[in-house]
């Protein structure tokens, strides 16, 4: 994984949050608000699945113990 900067617990938390937001947004609420919530949910889902967070990278931060890349 290129430059992974998320620990496993971080990834799982993001994935769970993403799934919940997607299901609530697209599946439960619906409408414009639901679509917005679903799109917001895609962000933690994708960053969790990739294992790399651009916001962490921007601030040279990371939850993963990784030589050379994390704080």
């Amino acid at each position, binding site marked *: 994984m290129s430059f992974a900067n998320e620990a496993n617990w971080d990834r799982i938390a993001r994935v769970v949050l993403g799934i919940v937001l*997607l299901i609530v947004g697209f599946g439960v609420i619906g409408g414009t608000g639901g679509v917005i919530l679903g799109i917001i949910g895609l962000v933690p889902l994708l960053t969790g699945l990739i294992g790399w967070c651009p916001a962490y990278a921007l601030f040279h931060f990371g939850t993963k113990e990784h030589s050379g890349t994390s704080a």
Partner: protein
Amino acid sequence: MSPSGPVPSRGAVVVDVWATWCGPCRTMDPILTRVSAEFAGRVDLVRLEVGDDTDLVSGLGVMGVPTLISFRDGGEVGRVTGGVGEEAIRAMFRAAAVGGGPTPPSANTTDMALRGLVALVLLVAGLSLGPSWPLVGVGVALGLWMVLNLVQTVRLNPTGPGGSPSRPEAPDGVP
């Protein structure tokens, strides 16, 4: 990939193609130096700056920076493009030292399992709630992503997905 320029027909070489404007290249630089020291005498590290060696770089088929290419006896045995961590860099040196090592897979078994699981959850949720086609769509996309990872990993490493690039042959380590 035919041997060219800095790649001798014998021995083990890792070619690092980098650029001055490339942030990940700078991040990888000290790691490359450290790992290269571990493989001193067994694997040579050749650094190519894209601006200085344009013909050579395009001859190597480099599509972006940073790119690491492992060569063993003049033949390419591994390639990775993009910023990678210490373990992936070490795998590239190991591939050159041992010979025949594949490019490190971009996704390991955990990544693929996670993507597959999420795809399944979203598909089931999408089909049972409505159906909600956006959820189904995201689930299908994640499933395809996992399948692509799987195909790539199996193609690069026939011994099994997510495995170490090491091979059963004993490393002779002599360039």
